[in-house]
């Protein structure tokens, strides 16, 4: 394992990137290391590049750790090149090195291999040639780019190859070195203005449908479907009314989206009031996902059935709220109430529940929080003989247990010390005289607490 990057303190004691981890630890035993995450670094670089777009539209990333900004014509807006550079460095929030030059290749070479503004003084390693060529150049006595540039280009091309000569010419400034700027696609939006303000909501919805058809065409070109649609209705007196609908699956169907919008309008507590009329309508698709054009399968039924459930869930969620349509998801915990959680069905697809072949029996219905009951057991560590729940006394006929579930001691402060790990539960599967089956537990063993309490956690089928 090798070091990829070091901080200033590490550099001061002599650690450099490329050193073996064992050697580095030998020098400084208390070295703090973190695993290298190239994808995370790339994502951060992309985000920084987008942030730099406030200075210039021509920003390119120079992986793994550089950015190229073309500030021709932009510097005066920020008070000069030095000021722009200072602002850009402050915006990144990281320790940086920078260099300014007349072309991109020179700037890149200066920041990585040199320091002064003089391109000619750069070492020949700035050309980034392979090992053999660099050694050959050193043996020939050529150490800086200035010396190389004085030689005839044809001879250099014969020795080092066309690519090296091109790179040299780019750094010097004889050849162009364009950069490919980052481009972010704007959010698809459509708007429509009316000479005569629309007085009725129906007319506004018809106009929205027309706008949706246009928006869908934009999405088709990008190969995307929308997950959230935002509608803004501008009244002629200046008030703006905004609505949004969400779908579980990406969609490009105007009819479906209009239906969801109508459901949303129906459920508004504060009805849409056109006032003197709407004079502009805007729609946008803030959240999108890739959606390729789908061919209807010949067999038809199953694929349509899947879509139909998603549409129904979208409609129910739009009408009654996203928190009304829920799915169960598993969670890795041996505490029963933490073993699952409910999440809105629109936000996450169904999870795969892991199979547990030798699991202890679990109830069909769970009470959260567990309901307190008063129980009487004939022996301290045994199942209860009878218990009282919601005012009714139940005589226990059959019982199975105990299943001992200890608390999650690792989550507690000082939990590893005896007595601080949380109370242990002893679960019993109880059947009463009328045949109903319950899941009771005693919260705490008799040597943990003097008076442990009993709770009903669930009902079995």
């Amino acid at each position, binding site marked *: 394992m090798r070091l990829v990057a070091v901080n200033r303190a590490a550099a001061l004691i002599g650690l450099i990137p490329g050193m073996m981890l064992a050697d580095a630890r030998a020098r400084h035993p208390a070295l703090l290391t973190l695993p290298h995450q190239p994808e995370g670094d790339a994502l951060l670089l992309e985000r920084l590049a987008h942030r730099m777009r406030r200075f210039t539209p021509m920003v390119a990333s120079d992986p793994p750790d550089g950015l190229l900004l073309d500030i021709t014509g932009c510097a005066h807006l920020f008070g000069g090149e030095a000021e722009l550079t200072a602002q850009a460095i402050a915006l990144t929030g990281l320790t940086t090195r920078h260099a300014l030059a007349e072309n991109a290749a020179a700037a890149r070479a200066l920041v990585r291999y040199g320091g002064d503004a003089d391109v000619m003084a750069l070492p020949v390693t700035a050309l980034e040639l392979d090992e053999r060529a660099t050694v050959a150049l050193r043996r020939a006595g050529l150490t800086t780019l200035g010396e190389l540039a004085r030689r005839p280009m044809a001879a250099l091309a014969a020795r080092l190859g066309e690519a090296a000569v091109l790179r040299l010419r780019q750094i010097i400034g004889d050849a162009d070195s364009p950069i490919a700027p980052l481009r972010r696609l704007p959010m698809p939006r459509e708007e429509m203005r009316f000479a005569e303000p629309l007085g009725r909501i129906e007319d506004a919805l018809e106009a929205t449908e027309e706008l949706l058809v246009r928006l869908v065409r934009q999405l088709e070109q990008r190969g995307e479907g929308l997950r959230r649609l935002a509608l803004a209705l501008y009244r002629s007196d200046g008030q703006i009314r905004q609505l949004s609908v969400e779908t579980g699956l990406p969609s490009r169907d105007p009819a479906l989206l209009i239906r969801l919008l109508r459901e949303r309008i129906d459920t508004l507590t504060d009805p849409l009031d056109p006032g003197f009329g709407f004079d502009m309508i805007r729609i946008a698709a803030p959240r999108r996902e890739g959606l390729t054009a789908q061919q209807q399968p010949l067999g038809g039924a199953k694929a349509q*059935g899947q879509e139909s459930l998603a549409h*129904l869930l979208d409609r129910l969620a739009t009408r009654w709220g996203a928190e009304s349509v829920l799915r*169960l998801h598993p969670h890795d915990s041996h505490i029963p109430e933490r073993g699952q959680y409910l999440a809105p069905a629109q936000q996450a697809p169904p999870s795969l529940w892991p199979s547990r072949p030798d699991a202890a029996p679990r109830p*069909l219905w769970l009470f959260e929080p567990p309901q307190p009951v008063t129980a009487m057991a004939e022996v301290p560590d045994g199942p209860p003989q009878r218990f009282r729940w919601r005012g009714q006394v139940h005589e226990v006929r059959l019982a199975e247990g105990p299943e001992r579930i200890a608390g999650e001691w690792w989550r507690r402060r000082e939990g590893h010390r005896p007595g601080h790990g949380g109370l242990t539960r002893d679960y019993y599967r109880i059947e009463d005289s009328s045949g109903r089956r319950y899941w009771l537990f005693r919260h705490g063993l008799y040597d943990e607490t003097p008076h442990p309490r009993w709770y009903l956690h669930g009902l079995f089928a």
Partner: protein
Amino acid sequence: MRFDQTALLAPARLHEIHGDEPDRAAMLHFALAAAGARSHGPILLLRVPQHRQDGMAYGEGLRELGIDPARLVLIELRDTLALLRAGVDAARCTGIAAVLIESRGTAREYDLTASRRLTLAAEASALCVLMLRVSAPERPSAAQTRWRISAAPSAPLAANAPGPPAIHAELLRQRSGPAGQHWRLEWDAEHGCFIEAALPGAVVSLPALRKGMEGGTSAIARAA
């Protein structure tokens, strides 16, 4: 003997299941068994949660009944009218295995018209719609069958442990068919279905009786 639930709870129809509040789990079990056996699609359970301590379905428990918890979609609504409207919408959806609607108490909005709408929706999409009426009085409706389900004492296993889940099922009403039968059903976890099982301890073993007759003791043989 296997209890043929799919024959009695026919698809493309509405079925009502009545029961008391403490037997909710048994009613849910019966309904889920009918829903889950048919196909492997999603199951929608619509409820009106009364209060936060009402509880929720537990995934591991569902899996023990042979139903993948990922199939269940829970829809929680604020009152009975919303419940019935959402129920009709859900019943029209294709591609799902069954719709279970749970109502509590005297749901006044669930009348003949509402049940007729549910039946029409079920017929259109050919799926089974089960209406779980917890502590509700029986009311005339367009349902194909009406059941009363309650939990039954199970046959104990070794060391006095509760045996496989057992329920009493009574067919109160069936449209164009016989009604009034009782069953005591036991859950067979291996095959994932109900079997008709007699009450435990009801059978008297014949050899013990014969011995009593020959040996001359007048004591009635104890049940096996």
